[in-house]
């Protein structure tokens, strides 16, 4: 693996390898006083976040540091980025300065793909930490990892993804990865929050959450961003919550083993009732914990092998 840009078209065997590595790393670190592996000593990992996301950036940073990589955080403000330097020039500068891996979060869909193209010669790996409305592959991997933990496997499971699919990179990455791993994915949203063209995705589409819950093995809630609420995509937060919020009554419609996931940050009371978020059925803190191990696994697969030129 040279880059991790998307889960679309991912080879299921590769995805499972990464998940297995994550599980092994989790076990390797379990109960340790010193959570530090020497594996990536001497490797330099740069996080480049053009959007604020403390949780994702910190998760990558911890992952890199636990594997002894040198992790450097570049934020869009306070660097040359804010002085109008192009993404391409910033990336080439970081590569020339010795970055082995660039982890990028960017508001433009495809930014990570472009970056990988520009860094082809430098040999730098690129991890997509979220590009616009396109993909967020490590989130999907950590979701799959959490589902494996809780359900045993993803294959054959029915995963209901609820909310703003239109703008969600988490939804896109999960659709590709979970279906590649053999899950049935159901997307539930008001029609205004589903992309035109979703008919061609390998999923079932529904507008009725209650109808999908009794057969759900997992319910994954998507974040509804504040700007969408005022963008006329639905009449009001209250109406959204009534139709698509996961409350206790709705949770009772799901089978006893069903898991609740949320990529965070949560809007309690709107997308998810507090009692549901804090119930044992919710795997939301597991997701965060697994995120570190999955990102360690991704770094391992990207960086702990021979340079491709020497292969």
């Amino acid at each position, binding site marked *: 693996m040279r880059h991790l840009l998307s889960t679309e078209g991912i080879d299921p065997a590769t995805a499972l390898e990464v998940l297995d590595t994550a599980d092994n790393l989790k076990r390797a670190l379990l109960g340790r006083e010193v959570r530090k592996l020497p594996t990536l000593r001497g490797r330099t990992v740069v996080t480049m976040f053009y959007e604020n996301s403390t949780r994702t950036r910190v998760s990558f940073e911890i992952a890199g540091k636990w594997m002894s990589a040198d992790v450097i955080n570049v934020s869009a403000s306070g660097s040359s980025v804010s002085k109008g330097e192009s993404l*391409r020039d910033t990336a080439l500068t970081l590569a020339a300065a010795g970055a082995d891996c660039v982890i990028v979060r960017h508001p433009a869909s495809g930014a990570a793909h472009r970056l990988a193209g520009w860094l082809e010669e430098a040999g730098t790996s690129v991890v997509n930490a979220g590009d616009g409305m*396109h*993909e967020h592959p490590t989130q999907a991997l950590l979701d799959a990892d959490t589902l494996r933990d809780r359900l045993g496997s993803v294959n054959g499971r029915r995963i209901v993804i609820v909310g703003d699919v239109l703008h969600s990179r988490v939804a896109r990455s999960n659709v590709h990865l979970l279906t590649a791993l053999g899950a049935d994915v159901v997307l539930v949203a008001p029609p205004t929050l589903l992309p*035109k063209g979703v008919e061609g*995705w390998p999923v079932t589409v529904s507008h009725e959450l209650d109808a999908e819950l009794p057969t759900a093995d997992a319910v994954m809630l998507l974040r509804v961003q504040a700007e969408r609420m005022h963008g006329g995509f639905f009449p009001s937060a209250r109406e959204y919550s009534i139709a698509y919020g996961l409350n206790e009554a709705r949770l009772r419609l799901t089978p006893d083993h069903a898991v609740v996931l949320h990529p965070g940050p949560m809007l309690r009371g709107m997308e998810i009732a507090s009692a549901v978020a804090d119930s044992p059925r919710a795997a939301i803190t597991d997701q965060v914990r697994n995120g570190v191990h999955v990102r360690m696994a991704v770094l391992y697969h990207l960086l702990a092998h021979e340079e491709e030129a020497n292969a």
Partner: protein
Amino acid sequence: MNKTLLRGVRLYGEGDPVDLLISDGVIAEIGTDLADADAEVVDAAGQVALPGFVDLHTHLREPGREDTETIATGSAAAALGGYTAVFAMANTDPVADNAVVIEHVWRRGREVGLVDVHPIGAVTVGLGGEKLAELGTMARSAAGVRVFSDDGHCVADPLIMRRALEYSKALDAVIAQHAEEPRLTVGAQAHEGEQASRLGLAGWPAAAEESIVARDCLLALHVGARLHVCHVSTAGTVEVLRWAKTRGDAIAPQATRAGIVPQAGRPGISAEVTPHHLLLTDERLASYDPVNKVNPPLRTEADAKALREALAEGVIDCVATDHAPHAVQDKDCEWAAARPGMLGLQTALSVVIETMVRPGLLDWRGVARVMSERPAEIAGLSDHGRPLEVGEPATLVLIDPDASWTVRGAALASVAGNTPYEGMTLPGRVMTTVLRGRITAHDGRIRA
């Protein structure tokens, strides 16, 4: 030397080869085994002769973005592409919304002299869509503007559009509309469909174009004015045009002002399609390379097919390049930050051969119609798109139909290199371009 003898050409690709003697800017003689001791002889055996091409939609970028194209380089690209007249869009900096900028472009075009450069005037001041520009002053300027457009922006306000259409009647002019309902394309990045949904690119619905085209056709019919629809890109627009033209073709243009002579037979509603919308589809977007970013966006194969058929049928009148040079830094960036547009002047003919001639949708007479005669008619050019007959202006192009070439952006005459056809091998090659008897381009080189 003011005489040229073209040997062995086939007029409109038909019949036996003939020789064509050009003298003093007109076609003096057509026959076999012509000879003239004073004439420059061009051996054009087997080449197809067509009237010189007319591009209704070119961005020459001067004034303002001379780092991407100038009137000189754009004229060179046009001549090399077989064009003898181009219409320069108004979205320069400053905007061509007044006679001063208009006359500058016109004069500069004459100085370069490789093609007739006709400036297009802006419909509204600063392309702002709010206040009509001084259309009359531009029409009566030295450039004699007959085409107005806010291209790059839609004249979205229906009342402003109605007024523009109405007002232009007195100027014997046509309003060329960039049909894009702005409220439906806020932040839009790619044709709204499965490809955009997968790539996470904000959707650019076909209806944003179709709704404006429908509205404008109704307005043009209502006020009896002439409307030209720029860069038609969807199958739905074709359907709207098909309907409107059954009502609209018959409209007689009116000219009431003194000094403006109306031309007979100009269409009430006309439309153009770009070469790239005939050939390319949104499948190309998967690379996120903004060389494929264009406005309107590349659509689906079903749309491209409908456009090719509409062009063959005449529902779409002509091919226009929407030649849009952009600097490297405006293209070699992330998709959303990139500017829309692609080069087109030097590749247009080859793309038309590939998409229309080879599949049998158009013969060479058809190519002459969509690339020369019809656009000249729409824009009211009396000396372009003329028949290849004795006594007519020697404004023509010779094409080697059997040649093919591989497109290299760096080798094109434009300052910018943003061609979506990089590395593609395309059929047909422009061999010689003649403007009023003068060879402007020959065998891939400009004749200054």
